[in-house]
């Protein structure tokens, strides 16, 4: 089932939670809503579920406008961060509840609940109460309940946020695999970019009620269209430096008060065509230690990340984060020379905060 959202708006009194949202979600696609807390992700999801009525705009399931359709007539399944299991019902009754409301016979209920529970690996917990289950088991029950009625659309609202890191990793893989196998159109709300980047086919990045971008994970990472996306997507975050670009022969000189960096690259050439101030973005993994590097600065923080160290280098009043192998044994206070992968640079207009490279 494809889902189309056109000019969707929602205000609560004077608070605008969602503003002019446009999205098309293809049948069977896995879309993540990614954004900081309070940016309107849950509100959008609850409008798709039919809990909230939009103040403006249209939501379509297939060709059918569902704006005023009751949640029970939308054939959706939903999984919540708090699991939202019914505490007075056993696991079996929880999963069977949607079927019972549909008038499915007791025998068929038993078969379908068992099947759904087996898929989620909780087939032997059916007689327990939610209070007797661990967080991970509860979330599996919630998933089972969402899947049992074979929904057209699956909605997730930060389903893994209450789980510990290891369990989150396992569940991430399981949900992704399950979704691919069943081919159910899914919308997954999260504030965790790793979840969004690893699970989703496309990511809708939201900020303060507005859609910032709607792209594949690779595009978001490699071709960020706005400064917000560039700095929000990716961990550790991208370095952003104010800079001016000028053409000198066939090289481009990137410079500011503290650094001067001659580079040769397509992207830099594009930047050089813009006059005046620019913001340059470079990811920590694209900054390397190099004996004849053009940049020179003093390390003032070393953050061990296990496989690599993240070092924070001060160049004049600017700061540049870089990922280096632990073998280099960089210590705070060391002076280092750095080079930058010019093919991976990003450039933004400081006024509009939009990319100069990608539109």
């Amino acid at each position: 089932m494809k889902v189309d959202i056109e000019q969707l708006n929602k205000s609560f009194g004077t608070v605008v939670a969602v503003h002019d949202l446009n999205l098309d979600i293809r049948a069977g696609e896995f879309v993540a809503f990614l954004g900081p807390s309070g940016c309107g992700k849950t509100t959008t999801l609850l409008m798709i579920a039919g809990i909230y009525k939009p103040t403006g705009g249209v939501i379509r399931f297939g060709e059918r406008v569902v704006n005023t359709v009751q949640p029970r007539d939308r054939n959706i399944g939903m999984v919540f961060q708090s699991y939202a299991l019914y505490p007075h019902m056993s696991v079996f009754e929880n999963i069977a509840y949607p079927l019972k409301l549909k008038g499915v016979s007791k025998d068929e209920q038993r078969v379908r609940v068992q099947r759904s529970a087996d898929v989620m690996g909780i087939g032997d917990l059916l007689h327990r109460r939610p209070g007797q289950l661990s967080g991970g088991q509860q979330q599996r029950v919630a998933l089972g309940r969402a899947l049992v009625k074979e929904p057209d659309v699956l909605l997730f609202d930060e389903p893994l946020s209450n789980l510990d890191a290891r369990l989150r990793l396992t569940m991430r893989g399981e949900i992704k695999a399950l979704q691919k196998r069943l081919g159910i159109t899914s919308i997954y709300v999260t504030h965790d970019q790793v979840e969004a980047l690893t699970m989703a086919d496309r990511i809708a990045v939201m900020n303060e009620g507005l859609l910032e971008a709607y792209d594949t994970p690779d595009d978001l990472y490699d071709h960020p269209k706005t400064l917000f996306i560039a700095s929000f997507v990716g961990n550790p975050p991208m370095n952003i430096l104010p800079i001016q670009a000028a053409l000198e022969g066939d090289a481009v000189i990137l410079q500011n008060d503290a650094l001067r960096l001659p580079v040769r690259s397509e992207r830099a050439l594009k930047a050089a065509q813009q006059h005046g101030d620019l913001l340059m973005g470079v990811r920590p993994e694209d900054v390397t230690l190099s004996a004849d590097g053009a940049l020179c600065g003093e390390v003032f923080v070393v953050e061990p990340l296990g496989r690599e160290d993240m070092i924070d280098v001060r160049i004049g009043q600017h700061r540049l984060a870089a990922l280096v192998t632990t073998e280099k044994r960089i210590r705070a206070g060391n002076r280092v020379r750095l080079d930058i992968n010019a093919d991976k640079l990003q450039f933004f207009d400081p006024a509009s905060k939009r990319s100069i490279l990608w539109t």
Partner: protein
Amino acid sequence: MHCAPTATGTFLGMGMAAVTTTQSKRTSSGRPNLTAYLFLMPAVVLVVLFFLIPTILVLYISMTNLTSANFTADIAQMEFIGFANFTTLFNDQFAQKILFNTLFYVLVTMAIFNVGASLFVSLLTTHINRRASFVFRALWLLPRITAGTVYIMMWRRMIADPPFGILNQALGAVGGTPITGSEYVWTFVVIVNGMIGMSFGMVIFTAAIESISKDIMNAALVDGSTMLQRIRYIILPLLRWPLLFVISYQTLSLLTSYEQILLLTNGGPGLYQTEVWALTAYHRALSNYFGNAQWGYGSAFAVVLVVIGVLLAALYMRVFRFRDLVAEPKIETL
């Protein structure tokens, strides 16, 4: 369960002797804990002062022939007469009628108002616009916060016999037959008391409904419930403890309440027509028709009420599984 703390808190607030005992037993496992007893002191003092001592006094007086006639400076004239008052009570030709009145009054008022109407209003006001529901609930609190005498005076004006009475004036205006208060006296006794009593349940039920997590409420709709199905399958089952609590608390409070009936009908208008047990205790002990207050005999009525109350309280404690409610929380295991 989410509603357990509400029930526990309010139950402790009842300050019943039994609650205190349960608590102190739990804390004194092993060596007696002085600090724990110190913390219990305020509750213990209150219970002793306002429950235990009065009960013992009433129990003693109920076994004497004390009346206002033989109450002289020489208290020695008061005689200890054992269970004679109780024998008289059980042979009293009106006791059975009064007992039946009391059961009728407690059960009907509770079913219709203290539980029925309060649950209905709570469900209604939690499903409508917040501001409207606030106004609505505030209105329902008025009978409780109005001074009892004022409230009853208003009702008496309202239901006075024709040609007076606002109700009859209104009925007359639309061409209906006027009604007399005596015909419908039980109806009015139940309504007048019920409208005070229902706000208690309303406050408890509303709080309990609003404390059900929003996610659970939304999940129920997404899973396919209509509003009514959500009430039936999700909300009502989750109100089990508040319901039990309101039922038990309100039986006890209806059993012992008589002020409104005293002011509205004083047990009449027919002979013992609306007389309830607590009112009889008052009539016998403090307001006898013949000007002779039978303190001893009245106390016997009060003692019967205390016994019934304590038995019911003990029963409710079992039904509530009170020990489970105050059990220490199990540490969440992942």
